[in-house]
């Protein structure tokens, strides 16, 4: 593999018109299994191999990718990358400039105790079908579904500055849901969270540690009980969020706004821009004094979907302060965007979905650091609402106004959990919301969640991101706007 990558790099540099080039050769495989109502739904596996060549020629970027790894295929891709770059001169302002980076030679493999591809498919299906049976045992569950996803990818990165980096990542994901249709209403409960469940850069040990079957009776019971629950009230309430919902809140209202390419306008036509204009750096009070957020791709942060040794332009993984004691302290950068704002080094957040896509600034592990409160202290409110498990999410194209829906909620009266509410939603403005945070549970309640389906870029790339959080409290939040 390395020889092919170096061959492609040589083809990109040979003409002499290229001032920078890097190549990513990626070999991947994945397995996707699902069940629905007692039957196997999906059973599929795939393997994939190809390379992408990124060049700067005449001061412009060009990128060409191919699955044809013959000598002719690689030569054609290199030639096309250069042709594409040169075409950019028809609409350019200045030459691309990159923040400096050292050459690195490294080999890295993510932690994986139990190879998920070595676990028999029969056993994986049996686990899903056991859960399915348990969910449908509860009267009123009208659909049960579950899924497991496993992937392994090896990437060889080589560049014209001399880097040769070999990284292998294994990702596992699992989740299930019980649906209940009754009286013109569809309700749903999911575990460990919704939209595919929990994902981490681990092996099959993740699936075993989640105690999936144990939670199935409760999930089924709650899905049906929601039909009898009261509608979540509309009004201003103290809001407590469980950690997976808070992970998505971080993703949408902190993670995306801090992407420097977005701030600088690169995503304006699609995902949009950001309220975090450059003048906000080190001046904006993003959150309350107890809010501390990092963007951390290092292994010490945990096996998140954003953990690696080097990003996809050869920059080492780093831990960067995003919000420190409530103050906005940093963006996620690339070599090009760091240079554009006068920073001397990228903080290493460039990633591509695979060989066929250009690296973009992507969230690594953007996490809310744990607080000091006990869970009892977080729930210590006179009149509040506790929401759990995401059901819907939406935010404007500058990341000010958001609205989230959750699968279930409970009223909290004098610190105690009371009535169940159905159809809960809450909304707000990003900075107002984070400034309303006045309690964050401690490290014993902190979970590093994986979001496997973050979309960005044109052509769109779907990327996994990590978000650590523990249950937290927010004062005077608008609740119930989703149901007028």
């Amino acid at each position, binding site marked *: 593999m390395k020889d092919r990558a170096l061959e492609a790099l040589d083809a990109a540099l040979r003409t002499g018109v290229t001032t920078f080039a890097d190549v990513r050769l990626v070999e991947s495989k994945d397995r996707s299994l699902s069940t629905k109502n007692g039957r196997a739904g999906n059973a599929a596996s795939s393997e994939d191999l190809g390379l992408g060549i990124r060049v700067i020629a005449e001061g412009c970027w060009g990128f060409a*990718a191919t699955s044809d790894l013959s000598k002719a295929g690689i030569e054609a891709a290199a030639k096309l990358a250069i042709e594409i770059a040169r075409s*950019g001169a028809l609409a350019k302002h200045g030459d691309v400039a990159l923040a400096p980076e050292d050459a690195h030679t490294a080999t890295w493999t993510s932690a994986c105790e139990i190879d998920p591809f070595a676990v028999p498919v029969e056993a994986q299906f049996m686990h899903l079908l056991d859960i399915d049976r348990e969910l449908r045992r509860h009267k009123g569950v009208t659909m049960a579904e579950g899924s497991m996803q496993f992937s392994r990818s090896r990437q060889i990165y080589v560049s014209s500055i001399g880097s040769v980096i070999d990284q292998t990542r294994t990702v596992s994901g699992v989740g299930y849901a019980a649906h209940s249709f009754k009286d013109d209403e569809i309700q749903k409960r999911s575990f460990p969270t919704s939209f595919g469940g929990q994902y981490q850069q681990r092996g099959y040990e993740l699936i075993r540690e989640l105690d999936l079957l144990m939670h199935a009776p409760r999930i089924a019971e709650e899905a049906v009980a929601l039909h009898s629950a009261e509608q979540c009230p509309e009004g201003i309430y103290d809001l407590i969020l469980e950690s997976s919902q808070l992970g998505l809140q971080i993703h949408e209202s902190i993670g995306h706004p801090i992407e420097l390419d977005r701030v600088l306008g690169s995503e304006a036509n699609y995902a949009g821009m950001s309220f975090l204009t450059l003048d906000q750096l080190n001046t904006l009070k993003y959150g309350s004094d107890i809010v501390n957020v990092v963007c951390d791709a290092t292994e010490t942060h945990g096996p998140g979907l954003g953990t690696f040794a080097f990003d996809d332009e050869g920059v080492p993984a780093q831990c960067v302060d995003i919000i420190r004691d409530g103050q906005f302290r940093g963006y996620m950068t690339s070599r090009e965007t760091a240079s554009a704002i006068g920073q001397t080094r990228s903080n290493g957040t460039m990633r591509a979905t695979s060989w066929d896509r250009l690296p973009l600034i992507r969230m690594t592990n953007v996490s809310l650091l744990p607080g000091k409160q006990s869970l009892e202290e977080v729930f210590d409110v006179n009149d509040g609402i506790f929401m759990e498990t995401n059901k819907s999410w939406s935010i404007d194209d500058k990341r000010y106004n958001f609205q989230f829906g959750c699968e279930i909620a409970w009223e909290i009266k004098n610190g105690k959990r009371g009535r169940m509410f159905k159809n809960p939603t809450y909304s707000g403005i990003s900075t107002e919301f984070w400034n309303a945070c006045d309690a964050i549970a401690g490290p014993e309640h902190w979970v590093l969640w994986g979001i496997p389906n973050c979309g960005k870029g044109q052509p769109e790339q779907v990327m996994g991101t990590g978000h650590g959080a523990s249950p937290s409290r927010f004062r005077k939040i608008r609740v119930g706007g989703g149901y007028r």
Partner: protein
Amino acid sequence: MSENYFEAAVQAAAKLGIQDVEVHYRAGSEALTRFANNAIHQNVSETSQSLSVRLLIGQKSARATTNRLDADGIARCVAEAAALTRSMADDEELMPLADPAPITPVDRYDPETALCSPETRARGVAAAIREAGSLTAAGIYSTEDLTEAVFNTKGIRAMHRETMARFSITTMAGDSSGWAKASSVRCGDLDPAALAATAARKARLSANPREIPAGAYTVILEPAAVLDFIGQIMPGFSATAIADQRSFLTERLHTKLFDERIQITDDVFHPLQSGAPFDGEGLPRQVLALARNGMPQAIAYSRAAARKAGAVPTGHGHELPNDTGEAPENIVIHGGSATLDEMIASTPNGILVSRLWYIREVDPYETIMTGMTRDGTFLIEDGRVTAGLRNFRFNQSVIEALSNVEMLGEAVRTSGEEMFDMVVPAMKIHGFGFTEVTRF
């Protein structure tokens, strides 16, 4: 060429004692020139092909996919599919491979688009940036040439080659923005400068936006807003979704839900449509009258869903195996005769919406969606556009909106960012629920 890969897969399967083979082949090239801040900043191309093999062994079936199409790669893919298939439990509902049926081809291949060079795309981008003048422009110009084919050992030989070109532009002023997008199987149909002019006009018109309170308003949704909002409910026209009781049509089919004027058809042969005339099993797509006179009356059936329901397959099945069954993918919402100017002139107090953004389902049965307006939201007073507006969040039922339709424009091919391309009209709708105002 693609049939050779199929034959190689069949031979590899035969060596393993397996006769029932279905193969999906995909190949092509996709290129995209992206610009921002009035300059090209990302410029990419991808050439790829893949083979996906589904095997049937008794009452078991599974799929493996590879992009390594040498003899060893295909043999390895078939062996992987066989191993996965053998590890499955028997599925009594599994159907045998589909028999061939006549497929009416559709011509959606344009050589000029297939050969569109980086320089041609760059010239289109440069023309658009010039048209935007003093505004800041960002967008894309993409072209693609894709082939897809389905083969099986029962004799299905379904092949389709299609080109597609897309141009999209956002223009930004100090406190406002505008947007335009178009797509066609022929790049010659696209006019980047004209799209830039539309986007620029919207950005200039919406400068100095006013803030008005959230509430229920009469809205005029331009086609892109209709596509991304109304289009959200189309996957519900699925027999499997209804059987699973996750569709908004559960217990509602043949019930009048929308205004009398709402007619929805799924029609792969419509001249403004795109896509292959066959489904994931290689069955010919049928034209479906999904809704007539405001009443949902037809749904898509895969082979398996049709057998369960005692119905006829409609050629809308997804690639097997899957959980979701089928869905209509060539939506045409029939239009009316009103022009956008006539809709505006007939509105004493309302809001003109260019596009909607980040739309998500709040309530699946009542089809309540939330999302934002974006890139051109205007106040209408006394039949005239009088000001740009700060953007709103909406929480609105699609069913209710289609019941509150007052006027329909001409149905046109429309591209958005939240749904696949459809043929839809602009709509004037009363009582549209805006629930919050954002900061810009």
